[in-house]
């Protein structure tokens, strides 16, 4: 019995020691409230150029643009505030907040339409076949840290979103990999988009945000006047 207690005690000491050690080399802190300083309705590719649409992608994009123009298709993310999808949500000119809690989860909360992204840490990416009845606007995400970088893989997107505000299309088999890293007061998210249904190759976009300890996320309702976006370059009132 005594031996048992000793073993438990020793085990306990080990766990505490391990936690303290973990604390010293704790996962990098990417939590906080962030706000972009610029906005673009159109995706800006890393390395420049146009999105590498294939023939099906080009046809889909042309059709979406024509329908948005004649009003037969609504940009529902703006009109009735359904979620934006990835990467468009990351382009938001409104602030967002990252929480590294509860344990095993990174949670993103966006001021715009209080959208959420839940990133389950250190789990394998689910297979698309298993998600086919649960496709989501912002997809399903898992993450892990590689050094200072939070790597987020997402899959299981529905096809009701656009990649950007111009109506750039994607298919349901799209997957994304994000590399999110904080340097000083700046956070960057480099997103690789993989969608062979509509694109000839993978391509990357990069978003940069400032850490804003002075900013609190505000309430957001679809038909409201919201916070002043004049500090965000590229926001043009429509």
């Amino acid at each position: 019995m005594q031996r048992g207690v000793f073993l438990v005690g020793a085990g306990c000491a080990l766990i505490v020691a391990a936690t303290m050690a973990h604390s010293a080399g704790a996962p990098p802190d990417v939590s906080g409230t962030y706000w972009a300083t610029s906005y673009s309705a159109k995706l800006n590719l890393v390395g420049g150029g146009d999105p590498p649409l294939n023939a099906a992608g080009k046809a889909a994009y042309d059709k979406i643009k024509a329908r948005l123009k004649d009003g037969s298709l609504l940009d529902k993310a703006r009109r009735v505030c359904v979620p934006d999808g990835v990467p468009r949500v990351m382009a938001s000119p409104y602030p967002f907040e990252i929480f590294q809690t509860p344990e095993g989860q990174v949670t993103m909360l966006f001021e715009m339409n209080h959208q959420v992204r839940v990133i389950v840490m250190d789990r394998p990416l689910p297979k698309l076949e298993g998600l086919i009845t649960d496709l989501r606007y912002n997809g399903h995400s898992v993450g892990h840290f590689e050094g200072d970088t939070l790597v987020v893989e997402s899959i299981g997107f529905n096809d009701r979103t656009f990649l950007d505000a111009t109506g750039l299309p994607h298919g349901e088999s799209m997957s994304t990999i994000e590399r999110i890293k904080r340097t000083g007061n700046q956070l960057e998210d480099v997103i690789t988009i993989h969608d062979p249904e509509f694109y000839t190759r993978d391509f990357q976009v990069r978003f940069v945000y400032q850490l804003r300890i002075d900013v609190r996320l505000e309430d957001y309702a679809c038909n409201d006047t919201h916070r002043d976006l004049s500090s965000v370059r590229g926001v043009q009132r429509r």
Partner: protein
Amino acid sequence: MIWKNEADPLPKGSRGAFALVALCALLATDARGADTGAPVGLNLSAPGVAWAGFVAPRESNYQVARTFNDYSNPSTGIGPVTDDPAHPFVNNEVAREMNIQPTYRVADLTNEAGKNLMPWVQEALKKQNELVLRGRNGESREARCWETGVPAFHLNPGPMHIIQTPKEVVLFLAGRSRHIWLNVPHSRNPKPSWYGESVGHYEGDTLVVDTIGFNDKTFVDSYRTPHTDKLHVVERFRLIDNGNTLEVAFTVDDPGAFYKPWSGTRNRHRVVNPNNRLAESACAEANDDYFNIGLEPVPTTEKPAF
């Protein structure tokens, strides 16, 4: 939709070991306390834990079904607006339980809670009652995708997820979210908003939240009882029933709408499931007035800001 309470995943024999691990975890948490700063008096956030406003009873139970999407009365004092006994409200759960038709809400304007309403509030509810009795506009604001305000935020029966940090508590429910800023005073002139400005602190194991700075566009309940921007709500969150129930007891004061403050409670039940994650919501997707029954339109932006 029904949320079943998941069975405790721990086999019985492992409980002792679990207690030891829990003790270790406590020590370990202490060891890294410097990371997290302020102590948390009430821990509502853990992996896989959510707080459901309604858990379907195993056995048929009318009284439980009644609590599906309503406040409970306080033990003393004036309570929330309730249904007119001449037109009893039958929620979807009660309807299922009793095998009868569900109904829409008609407010009782003659009981103590009804008499506590100022004339303009009475008038607004009278109009709403008439609409409902004509078969119009029966759905709650929430069902039409509008922001709910406080305390109506608590009415949704779905699972509430909570995030706690030393600086803030965030409540997530049915695609909506509310921020509670800890250990700070109210701003001098909070910008009027849907959920107001909530500041909170722990009193022992109770989280006390004080909210002002509301706009006047929400209703305080599902009867569509209006309020003014003078609304002031105090909520007390605490665990009862061995930690299995989150009790939210609240008091509502609005000198522009109610003669006296009134109060109510809304209990939520702990549900544990490792796959139980906070999920996105797309309320306005396919949510039109298909049957042409005068439903309020979902919030729509005619001219987006960008």
